[in-house]
Every structure is written in structure tokens, then in C-alpha cells.
């Protein structure tokens, strides 16, 4: 995991930390705390919620709490579109992989 982060996570760090909204350390702390609390609730309920979703939502929330226009909404909405597209896309790819494995075996 650490290896993956060190190899190529920097673009994501930049998107999350700089492009959605401008963050101060205090806001970063609030965002992390809010995301972590949401994640705890989801874990307690057994819901598989991604860290990505909670943290992104928390960052957007922190930015919008200061001023609604402080959030770059086009960046945030493109992230949401990516999430929506991801689910059926990965389902299709996984089904294709399963069939490929069964055929090749």
C-alpha cells in the first residue's frame, strides 16, 4: 500500500488537497475528523464505504461551510460522475474476466 502511494499517489493528493478547495491545516483537520467519523459509522453498520468517498465528501463539506463558492464545483461534480461510471464499468470488466478465466482454464 505504501509502495503504491509512493509510486503514483501524488496526482491524487494534488487533486484532493488543492483542486477541490483551498485547505488550511485547521480545515484539513476538520475534514479528516468528519470523514473518519462517517467511516466509523459505516464500519459499525457493516456498510462497505470507501475512504475516498467519505474524505471527498468531507473536504467538499468543509469548503462549502466556509463559503459555497469556495468549492470548485466542476471538479467535485466530475469526481461524482467518475464514481457513478466506475460501478457498472468494473462490474462489466469483472464479468468479462471471469468468463475469460473459465474459457482459458
Amino acid at each position, binding site marked *: 500500500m505504501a509502495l503504491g502511494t509512493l509510486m503514483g499517489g501524488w496526482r491524487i493528493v494534488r487533486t484532493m488537497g488543492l483542486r477541490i478547495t483551498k485547505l488550511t491545516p485547521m480545515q484539513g483537520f476538520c475534514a479528516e475528523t468528519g470523514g473518519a467519523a462517517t467511516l466509523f459509522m459505516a464500519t459499525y453498520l*457493516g456498510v462497505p464505504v470507501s475512504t475516498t468517498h467519505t474524505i471527498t465528501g468531507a473536504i467538499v463539506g468543509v469548503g462549502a461551510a466556509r463559503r459555497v463558492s469556495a468549492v470548485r464545483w466542476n471538479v467535485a461534480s466530475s469526481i461524482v460522475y467518475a464514481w457513478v461510471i466506475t460501478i457498472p464499468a468494473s462490474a462489466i470488466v469483472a464479468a468479462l474476466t471471469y468468463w475469460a478465466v473459465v474459457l482459458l482454464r
Partner: protein
Amino acid sequence: MPRSVFRFWSILIAVALLFDFLNGLHDAANSIATIVSTRVLRPQYAVLWAAFFNFIAFLVFGLHVANTIGTGIIEPERRRCHRDLCGAGRRHRLEPDHLGARDSLVQFARADRRAGRRRHGEGRDFGGGLERPVEDAAGDRAVAAGRIPAGAGAGRDRVLAVGALDAVCGRPRLPHPAIRLGLALFARPWRQRRAEDHGHHRGAALFAGPSRRRISRSRSGWCWPARPRWRWAR
């Protein structure tokens, strides 16, 4: 442990490690993004921090989510991939409903024998008086699964051996769900006239094409009054 099972598990673990690498690339990056971009921690420390707590957290919080993903989405009884990957054979070549019979003679005989069978889950009873004993049904299931050739048993089943074996060897090698999906989407009229059809073979037929009869008629140059008897196209 058989060798194929060992290979299966090692491939599974390798894929899981690869997934973890990609997960670090995405999710760990997300979770340390605020810390790094606000310059609270230097990136190296933040990465070590994230890796350490990612590793250690399941000891504290248990495996709720892992259990949900592992057992909650797919029902364990219906998981087919384990059986398929562990080399249990080529069962999925056969559709269990048809008992592997492609030859029409065999189909009729099977339909006759299956008339009394209770369809699983429906609780209905097709054709009243032809109930069969339970051990007969078990034998049928073994035939459908490709474990024994039909006709291995004694009695009237012996006649069916050749057709069933032919069907076992000649079927295309497609997974069962793919076959079911294909049949549902590209349903043709020949499916509705099958010998053993008692209703549930009729699928969605989203892309129902022209019937087989019309295609093969045009191919063979056959026109209506010329040949009195219809033969199924193979």
C-alpha cells in the same frame, strides 16, 4: 492439498497483493491528501503513517465489512466459481434443464422421463401420474453434471447413452451464466417447440431473430410442398 488448488490460492493471493498496491495508489493517497497538501506532515511520514494504521486497523475494528463483501453479496451455495476453478470438470457445458440431450430422440425420451419431476422451487407437478423414485432423480442429476454417462445404470436408461455422450463432448465451452444470458436474449422459436418445454424455457427474447426454420429453408433451397416432413436443422 492438490496442486491445482495450491495454484488457485497463490494466484488469488497475488491478485490480492496487486489490488492492495493499486489501493495504496488510490485510497491511501486520498486519506493522506489533506495532511500532505496543508503541509502538516511531510509526504514520507504521512505515507508511513497511513500504511501502519491501514495494516493495524483490522485488529481493532474487526472484519464487519470484509464479511459483508465476502459472504453478503453472493450467496455461498450459489457460488460457482470455486467449483469451476478447482477443476471439477466441464459441467457447465451442459444445461442441467435439458439433461444434455441434443438429439431429438433422446429429448423425447428424456421429456417423457422428466414429466413427473418436480421443478425445483416451483412446487408444481408436471403431468400428474408419472412420479419417479428419488434415486432415479439423483441419477439424472449425476448425468446432467457430466459425472457419469447416461446409460451407466440398468434398465430403460441404457438406450440414451450415445446421444448424451455426444452432447457432453460436442457442446461449446461456455460458462453456464453466459449460455443462460444468450438464450434469454437471443431466443428463437425453436426453443419454444422443444420436446421438454413446459413453459420456463421461454426467455426475454430481446433480440429475437428470424426462426431457424426460415434460415435453413432458404439455405437448403427447400420450398413448402416439396418435402412433406420437417427435419430439425443441426
